[in-house]
C-alpha cells in the first residue's frame, strides 16, 4: 500500500520531478520520445521508486491551477465557434 509522503520531502523534489515526466511530450520521428518512468526518476534523484511516484502524482495535480478547470468549458465553446470539421481553410 503506497504511503503518503511528508510535505517536506514533496516540497524538496516537486519542481525537479515534473520536467522529467510525460507532462511535456516531445516527438521527433525516429527519436526516443518519452518522459522518465518512476524508477528512472528515482534513480535520477536518489529516492525510492515509491517516493518518486508519490511526488509525481501529487505534483501532476498541484501543477495545474483549479481556475484552468473552471475556464476550460468557456475556452472549448469559444474555440468550437461553429467550425466545420475537416475544413482547414488552408
Amino acid at each position, binding site marked *: 500500500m503506497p504511503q503518503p509522503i511528508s510535505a517536506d520531502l514533496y516540497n524538496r523534489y516537486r519542481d525537479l520531478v515534473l520536467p522529467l515526466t510525460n507532462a511535456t511530450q516531445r516527438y521527433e520521428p525516429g527519436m526516443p520520445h518519452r518522459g522518465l518512468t518512476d524508477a528512472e526518476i528515482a534513480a535520477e534523484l536518489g529516492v525510492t521508486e515509491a517516493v518518486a511516484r508519490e511526488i509525481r502524482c501529487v505534483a501532476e495535480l498541484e501543477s495545474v491551477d483549479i481556475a484552468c478547470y473552471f475556464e476550460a468549458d468557456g475556452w472549448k465553446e469559444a*474555440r468550437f465557434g461553429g467550425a466545420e470539421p475537416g475544413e482547414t481553410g488552408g
Partner: protein
Amino acid sequence: MSGDETGGPSAEADVKREAIRAGAVLAGIAAVEDIDRFAPPGHRPGDILRGARSVVVTAGGQPTRGSWHPGSARPQASVGYNRSIAGNSAYRVAHYVEDRFGYRAMPCPSGQVAGHYPYASLKLMAEMAGLGTRSMAGGVILNETYGLLYFGAALTTMPLQADGPLATPVCPDQACIRQWEKKGTTPCLEACPTCLSGQLEDGRIGWMEYRQDLCFPRAQTTAMDSFQKLLLAAMAESDEERRKMIVCGSHFTRAVRSLAYSAELSAQCFECLRRCPVGRRRRHELK
C-alpha cells in the same frame, strides 16, 4: 502462425476477425520486440503478461461521424468516445486466443497505473500494429480512413505475424502541408497553441511538442483530477456557505457524475482535431 496447410484463414486473420465480431472497427498485430524498442522497462507487454510475444490491438469507440457536427462543443465531449468498445473487443480476443489456440492471453489494462502514467502505451501498440501514425495533435494516432480512433489491446504469448508500423505517415495531410507552406501553421497547431507546438519539415512532422499538463483541464474538465482539486478546495474552505457553493455547484456535480457514470469523462476536448482533414471524407459522406 501465418501459414495454414488447410487453406483456411491464417491465425492472424482469424484473430482479427474475432476482434471485428466483438465490435472493433479495425484490428492489427504488433510484435512485442517492436514495442520494447520504445517502451521503457516496467511499461512493456512482458511486464504485464509474462512471456508476451504479440499484441492484438483493437480500435473502435470513436465518435460517430454525426458527433463531429454538434451544436456546441460539450455534447461531443460527453459522447464522443466510448471507452468500452475497444477494451471489450480486446477482452473477447484474449479469451478467443486462449480457447482456440491454447496460448495465454490477457487484456492490457487501459487505465493508469499511477497518476497520469498508463500501464503501457496503447498509442505505441497501435502504431506498431499499423493502425495509424503519430500526429501533430498531441501525438494521438490518426488512421487514414477513420481519423481519430481509440484502442484496446490483448497481450498473448502466441507468436503472431506482426503488421508492423505503417511506412507512410498519415499526418500531416496534404491540406495541412499546403497550410504550413502558406501560413506556417496547421489546423491543430492553430486550434490549440497552449498545448501544441511543432514544425513540418519537407512535408513531414519535423518535431511536435505536447503539453499534457495544460491539456488536462480542457480534455478532462470534470474528470478525476478536477474532482480531487475541488474536494481539496472544499476541505480547505472554512466558510460553510462557500463550501456549499463548491460542493453543490455545477462543476463539482459534473465531476461527481463523472465518477459515477463516465458520460462526462472525455478522451480529449476534440478542438485540435475538429479541423483535422484526416478522415474528413468519411465524416462528410453522410447526409
